[in-house]
């Protein structure tokens, strides 16, 4: 049994897992920040009180935009990134 080889691989594998965890957390953390902001300052969500508001006040709602950015990053950027990270991890292991 070559335990030494396993020990050598632990470093890069651990790093890749940590990076994958960080990347998986960035989008949800951003969306969560938007949710917290919406709860702290509900007056900035004009959809909650839409009467008499113009187009721009209804279209541009900062806390919702933050949530949207977090979701976009998590759903469209992160999955491919994790795949590529896993491939790199696999290549390093070999």
């Amino acid at each position, binding site marked *: 049994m070559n335990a030494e080889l396993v020990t050598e691989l632990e470093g890069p594998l651990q790093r890749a897992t940590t*990076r994958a965890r960080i990347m998986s957390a*960035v989008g949800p953390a*951003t969306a969560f920040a938007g949710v917290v902001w919406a709860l702290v300052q509900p007056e900035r969500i004009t959809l909650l009180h839409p009467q008499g508001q113009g*187009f721009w006040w209804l279209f*541009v709602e*900062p806390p919702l935009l933050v949530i*949207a950015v977090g979701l976009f*990053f998590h759903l469209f*950027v992160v999955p491919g990134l994790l795949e590529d990270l896993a491939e*790199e991890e696999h290549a390093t292991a070999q």
Partner: protein
Amino acid sequence: MQPPSEHVHWLFATGFLLLGLCLLGEAVVGTEVWRRRAWRAYLWPGLAFALGVLLWPVMTFYTNSAIHMLAHGAWAQVLTLAGAVELALVRGKLESRWWRLAMTAGFLVSGGAFLVHEQNAWLFQRSAFLHHLLGWTLLIGAIFPLARCLRPRSQVVATGFALTFVVISVMLYCDRDVAPIFGHISELAGTPRR
């Protein structure tokens, strides 16, 4: 149909937030992994370029003073240039890492533009305060794009560069036309809307 200026700040904040997250992604996974897919390699440079292009209509339509127009114009030019240079670097049309100084210039000119076109004192009201804060943040934050030229593989520098955009987006989201700053607002500033 022209959006109020604070809405424009918030829309740009959204763009800068996405830009910051993409840069953070590249800093965490490394440039080699980030660029494994072509569309992802072009994502943040393309976004920076698009934000630069979108500053041109801001210059054209928000002409409440000559200094505003000049500041927005200078800003549009440097951000478009910086975005274009980053695109060319990804594409391989440009190779020298010193081309990244275009982003440093973008930071310096943007910071200067923020400071020059804000005529009120720091604590006049919210947007005055944030314009000063944004200006100095960009001027000091220019250290990161400069460091990217000197140490292109440094993860600390890449993370600092990314987080600068995130901080800028937070400040832009806080920007309001008329609002108090630390509970203080000048009598000359007008009535806060909300």
